[in-house]
């Protein structure tokens, strides 16, 4: 929509640096799609943003219930955006349950756009409002700007005479709402129009219905005089360059393809579907043109075992999963560690233990990654800090696995796996090389090949079956140093345990030193984070520094081994605060390794930290 055209009624224009919109509705209302479209359009128009999709574990919880509410939150603006926002400026509530569920985090004075058809007696009852209470009518929303729109009827009117079923009409109502939002934020619908045409290219009638509904929503905003507010958000000051929108799981998948291409190793993914990791399997299964072998195994154990087999055969082998799957893969990871073969294990964490909170986020598998195997069995552990960062972290994990002959665990989590952000993506040239060489000749003067003879990185040779003259056997029984023959000898076992540990420690010589993300050395309070808490901590740190407080933010990608300078760096701060979405895991590692009296801030609610939660704790420490 061209903003220079005169509009048909008067309204206030609010200029804002950033805005948070929450789309909320029933699982069947298409809120994820609506939110994604709004987000992509926003990104396409040059805003920075961060998203937070939040949906129930049930595919279709009973319609209209609180359990069935599906939400999509997007925070966008002209400044750099690091989180999906603590509270929202605009709440789209498609039914009473959505309002009941999500009103609590709407800013005072915020805007509510409702579909009044979702507030009938039945919906109110399902949303557990007391008998006879309708929040749209009882004055309880007086502190907000409420727009009551009968979206269902208006969509029906717009699509009448098209010969559509009630169901198809009902399904288009999210497009009407999207149209209203595009009007409110002065955004062009072109991106979504193209999307609809592509998505429904085989069903022109449905495409037309969606387009009509979208335009009806836009026109509704433009012509009816009920809207008194419109937002104006300037273009962001993101660094110049070419951008795309990316989710963490998507970034993870293409990082694997990139690592395969850069290393020259064929890519093999052994995986078993599990929330929230399945999208990695889905995405990689598309890239057959890159010869990606994606193998949907019969279970989590077969998934990791098939990957071990592929690694043995000379592939870049990966297995992707979440907590319960990690538990099942544990024994096989011990085997891979003993075989000293490259393997990338992706754990897209979710709320645990057991089935826990499958669709909610948590970072509670760090200690499992560190210590969750029997025997002395250290492995490298990395964690991504944002959707786009999943690309770099996973790429780095592949590099470490292949160059150091070891399994590597990557800890992502549901928040960044499903969340998205604009990404100034790299080109192939920008990516660091991954150097792999398969051994084809014996490494021993006497001729007999020594499969466990180590190089300067303490890693052993990688030999592909089919290599003439180097036939040998490997396995899970303890190996004799260098020869790789089975050995039950006492001294040898101790030597091998220490060698395997030293090999992992040695990786610290090859990874970058730890830097301070925001703030200065020796600040009064250092906020130390890992994984998906990055955005919240970053926002808080920037704000507090701007306000004159002496704080710093350090964020870890490498959790094992730690960067070599970490201890020294941390010892310079007066206080170290470690916010984690768990009951205190990194804090144990830090205290254990550096004997530093760090302070924990723990949230275990299946939700990311709000910036306010961290800010309050930091202020408390600063004012001590």
């Amino acid at each position: 929509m061209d903003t220079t055209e005169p509009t048909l009624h008067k309204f206030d224009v609010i200029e804002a640096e950033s805005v948070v919109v929450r789309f909320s509705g029933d699982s069947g209302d298409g809120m994820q799609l609506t939110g994604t479209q709004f987000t992509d359009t926003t990104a396409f128009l040059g805003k920075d943003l961060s998203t937070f999709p939040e949906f129930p574990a049930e595919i279709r919880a009973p319609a209209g219930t609180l359990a069935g509410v599906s939400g999509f939150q997007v925070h966008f603006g002209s400044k750099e955006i690091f989180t999906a926002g603590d509270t929202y400026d605009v709440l789209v509530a498609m039914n009473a349950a959505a309002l009941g569920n999500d009103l609590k985090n709407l800013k005072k004075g915020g805007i509510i756009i409702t579909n009044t058809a979702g507030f009938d007696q039945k919906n109110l009852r399902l949303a557990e409002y007391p008998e006879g209470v309708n929040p749209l009518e009882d004055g309880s929303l007086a502190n907000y700007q409420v727009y009551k729109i009968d979206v269902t009827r208006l969509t029906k009117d717009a699509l009448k005479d098209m010969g559509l079923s009630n169901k198809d009409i009902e399904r288009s109502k999210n497009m009407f709402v999207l149209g209203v939002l595009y009007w409110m934020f002065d955004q062009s619908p072109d991106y979504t129009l193209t999307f609809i045409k592509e998505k429904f290219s085989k069903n022109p009638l449905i495409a037309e219905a969606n387009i009509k509904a979208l335009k009806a929503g836009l026109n509704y905003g433009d012509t009816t005089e009920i809207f008194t507010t419109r937002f104006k958000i300037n273009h962001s000051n993101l660094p110049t360059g070419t951008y795309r929108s990316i989710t963490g799981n998507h970034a993870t998948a293409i990082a694997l393809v990139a690592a395969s291409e850069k290393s020259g190793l064929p890519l093999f993914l052994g995986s078993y579907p599990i929330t929230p990791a399945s999208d990695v399997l889905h995405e990689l299964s598309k890239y057959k043109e890159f010869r990606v072998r994606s193998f949907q195994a019969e279970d989590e154990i077969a998934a990791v075992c098939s990957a071990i087999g592929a690694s043995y055969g000379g592939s870049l082998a990966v297995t992707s999963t979440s907590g319960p799957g990690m538990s099942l893969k544990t024994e096989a990871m011990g085997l891979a560690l003993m075989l000293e073969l490259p393997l990338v294990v992706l754990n897209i964490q979710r709320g645990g233990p057991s089935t826990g909170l499958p669709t909610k986020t948590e970072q509670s598998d760090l200690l499992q990654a560190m210590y969750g195997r029997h025997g002395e069995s250290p492995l490298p552990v990395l964690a991504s800090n944002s959707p786009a960062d999943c690309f770099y972290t996973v790429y780095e994990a592949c590099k470490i696995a292949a160059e150091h002959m070891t399994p590597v665990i990557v800890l992502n989590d549901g928040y960044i796996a499903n969340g998205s952000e604009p990404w100034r993506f790299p080109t192939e040239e920008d990516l660091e090389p991954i150097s792999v060489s398969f051994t084809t000749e014996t490494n021993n003067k006497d001729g007999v090949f020594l499969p466990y003879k180590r190089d300067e990185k303490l890693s052993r040779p990688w030999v592909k079956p089919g290599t003439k003259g180097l036939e040998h056997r490997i396995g899970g029984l303890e190996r004799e140093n260098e020869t790789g023959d089975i050995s039950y000898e006492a001294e040898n076992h101790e030597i091998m345990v220490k060698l395997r540990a030293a090999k992992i420690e040695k990786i610290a010589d090859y990874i970058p030193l730890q830097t301070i993300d925001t703030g200065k050395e020796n600040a009064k309070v250092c906020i130390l984070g890992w994984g998906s808490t990055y955005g919240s901590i970053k926002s808080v740190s920037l704000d507090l520094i701007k306000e004159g407080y002496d704080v710093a933010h350090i964020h870890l990608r490498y959790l094992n081994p730690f960067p070599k300078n970490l201890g020294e760096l941390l010892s310079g701060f007066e206080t170290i605060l470690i916010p984690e979405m768990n009951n205190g895991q990194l804090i144990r590692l830090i205290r254990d390794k550096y004997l530093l009296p760090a302070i924990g801030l723990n949230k275990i609610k299946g939700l990311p930290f709000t910036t306010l939660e961290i800010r309050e704790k930091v202020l408390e420490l600063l004012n001590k």
Partner: protein
Amino acid sequence: MSEIIEVPVIEKLTSKDFVPNQDVKWCPGCGDYSVLKQVHTIFPELGVKKEDFVFVCGIGCSSRFTFYVDSYGMHSIHGRATAIASGIKASRPELSVWVVTGDGDALSIGGNHFIHILRKNFDINILLFNNQIYGLTKGQYSPTSETGKITKSSPYGSVEQPFNPAELALGAKATFVSRTLDRDPKHMQSILKKAYYHKGASFVEIYQNCPVFNDGAFFIFTDKETKKTESLFLEEGKPLVFGVNNDRGIKLDGFNPVVVDLNENGNSVNDLWIHDEKDRIKANILAGFQDMKDTNPDLPRPFGVLYAVDKPTYEDAMEEQIARVISKKGKPALDKILSGDKTWVIG
């Protein structure tokens, strides 16, 4: 018109080439020695380069096999050899992959992987050493032990019914199901070769004697006095004949196998069941013989190839799919994947 077939030049191998510099540590008299011997014997004849053989094993006495064949091999974890082999074969279809497993490894802890590798039909050879006992853990009943079996973990007798491995394999859509014995080297060699030449997952159940914990479990099928009446050696296209003087045959009465005396009037070899490896229904009946002893005590135990059909292998189907997508889409530049379809410029 004559065709020139290029035969790859392969170094002439002998069985010694497959014997590694490693002591074999099975108990004296173990049936495993025989299987090892037959593998060492037939491998040079298969036309496969020594370095292209891969043995994958799990845990158990049988799984020590990996160490005793001088090729590539992995001794892995309990029950998972089949899953690991899937990954090797999917990523390296040109390798000759062999899984050696036992009744505990394949049918108990590794049961899930066992049925799925058969269903997926990777071109892999699975040698299941069935001794109906747990050997390495020193004598507990296994999933193939007979009901009532007295063992260390079942001093009053096992209360479980055993698996019938061939029936399980057929149920799992195996494309090659066979049975042989440690004490019949010639037969085993022929079955191992057939398993190798079968393109698809080949299941070979090998009756293997455990002299320490379950001695003599299968002697009835090889002892001179009982062999002829208790064992039936299947041959493709031939009638089902056994007995001391090949004087017994098997007919089908509906779905019921009936043992007939060929010396008796009216019974002709022409009326007997003719073995057809491709007949899935008959293969199931053959596999079921061992469970019909109560009602049909004269039924022998069938040995040989019970079932063999050609079906596409997983790795071929996967390769074909990749080739199809590449021919349709071409191989794009990595930069295309990094950028995706929709980008925008800032600045």
